[in-house]
């Protein structure tokens, strides 16, 4: 017991030390650059951040960006799941989806954004972009998970006449679960990044992207970095939340 606890502590201590190390690197760079406009210190960024979080606008901005981007991600997760099941069951679905999925997988986000801007209003574009970025991740991982199911267990189920629902619970779900879990966590952080990028390029009103864009325009470097920190923290928050929800969805008897 004691050993475990001290090991756990040690792990966290090392992580903390690593963060301190990088803050130190930052501080050293600050000293050598010696220009608040080019590179503000960690302390002044933190102070800016503390100022920011006291404004209502800060929280509204986060809410605005989050609602759209997370909505796009959730839409992609649910439809990606459905598409993957369709592609697993019917070859024609898989063939039909192959091209669009390939395009979504390979197109650079910025390229897609400026193309989409030709036809679409910038305001809600982040929903679409998050959707397009997350969909192929969910789709291909779930499909891979479905294909990894144990064929011999399916034969067993067929011989015993096990119902489709029980087959899903016993054989398909356990095969898909780890693929789905990693796809969702990776997908959400991808979708979040792409969504913010969209807001910057499209300059969507009241968004985190817009705040970043403005900060850049007026050389408010401290604000820019403070927002970058916020973006990272939110991304971690959503990833952890996703993990937690998935753990709750997992039946107790299955480990």
């Amino acid at each position, binding site marked *: 017991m004691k050993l475990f606890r001290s090991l756990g502590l040690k792990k966290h201590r090392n992580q903390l030390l690593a963060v301190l190390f990088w803050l130190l690197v930052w501080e050293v760079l600050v000293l050598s650059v010696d220009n608040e406009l080019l590179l503000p210190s960690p302390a002044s960024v933190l102070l800016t951040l503390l100022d920011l979080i006291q404004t209502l606008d800060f929280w509204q901005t986060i809410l605005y960006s989050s609602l759209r981007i997370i909505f796009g991600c959730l839409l992609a997760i649910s439809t990606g799941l459905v598409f993957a099941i369709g592609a697993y069951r019917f070859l024609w679905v898989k063939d039909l989806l192959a091209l669009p999925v390939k395009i979504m997988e390979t197109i650079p986000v910025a390229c897609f954004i400026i193309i989409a801007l030709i036809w679409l209003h910038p305001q809600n574009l982040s929903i679409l972009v998050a959707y397009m970025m997350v969909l192929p991740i969910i789709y291909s991982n779930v499909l891979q998970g479905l294909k990894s199911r144990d064929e011999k267990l399916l034969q*067993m189920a067929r011989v015993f*006449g*096990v119902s489709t629902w029980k087959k899903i619970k016993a054989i398909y779900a356990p095969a898909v679960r780890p693929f789905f879990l990693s796809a969702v966590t990776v997908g959400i952080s991808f979708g979040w990044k792409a969504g913010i990028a969209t807001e910057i390029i499209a300059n969507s009103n009241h968004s985190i992207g817009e705040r970043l864009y403005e900060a850049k325009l007026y050389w408010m470097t401290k604000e820019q970095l403070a927002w970058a920190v916020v973006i990272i923290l939110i991304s971690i928050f959503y990833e952890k939340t996703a993990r937690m929800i998935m753990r709750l969805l997992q039946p107790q008897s299955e480990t």
Partner: protein
Amino acid sequence: MDIELREVTKRFGAKTVLDGVSISLSEGQVNCLMGPSGSGKSTIVNILLGLLPIDSGQVIGMKNRKIAAVFQEDRLIEHWDALKNVQLVCDKSLTKEDILREFQQVGLEEDVDLKDHRKPVSLYSGGMRRRVTIVRALLAQSDIVILDEPFKGLDDALKLQVIAYVKQKTAGKTLLVVTHDKEEAQQLGGNMIILQAAV
């Protein structure tokens, strides 16, 4: 109606495993299928279960039958406990206590009792897993029971107990037991089918 294979030929690529094999199982009785390792016993089982297509010949009497089986491999849901594995295939009317009583009959009570039944079968020994598959096959609704080397990994005393259990549970049903052990076949009794190794 008896169950029959008539002049069945099965090839895997260039290799002919069954070359015009004909066998018949007596309905409602014990049938033992014997033969050396590699002679095609499990292939016959898979053909009877409808899991393998044949190259020529006929399979008679297997259409629309309720089948239960122990496969050559355990084919258990590894992360589930023994109870859940059995519940997957059996009727809802069987209670947990009913199933635990069956586990008792094959000497699994110490491992699968109420307090410990949550242990996933992946943590069981080979012999324990085999007995779970036997209980699973015998509690499923069926009129034909096919067991492919079901007593693998059981010591002699336990084997006698499990054989008695199998005979009791399958009385009146068509039973096919694959084995390469003469003693096992004698203890089971019934119709003996000997398979020669294909050349």
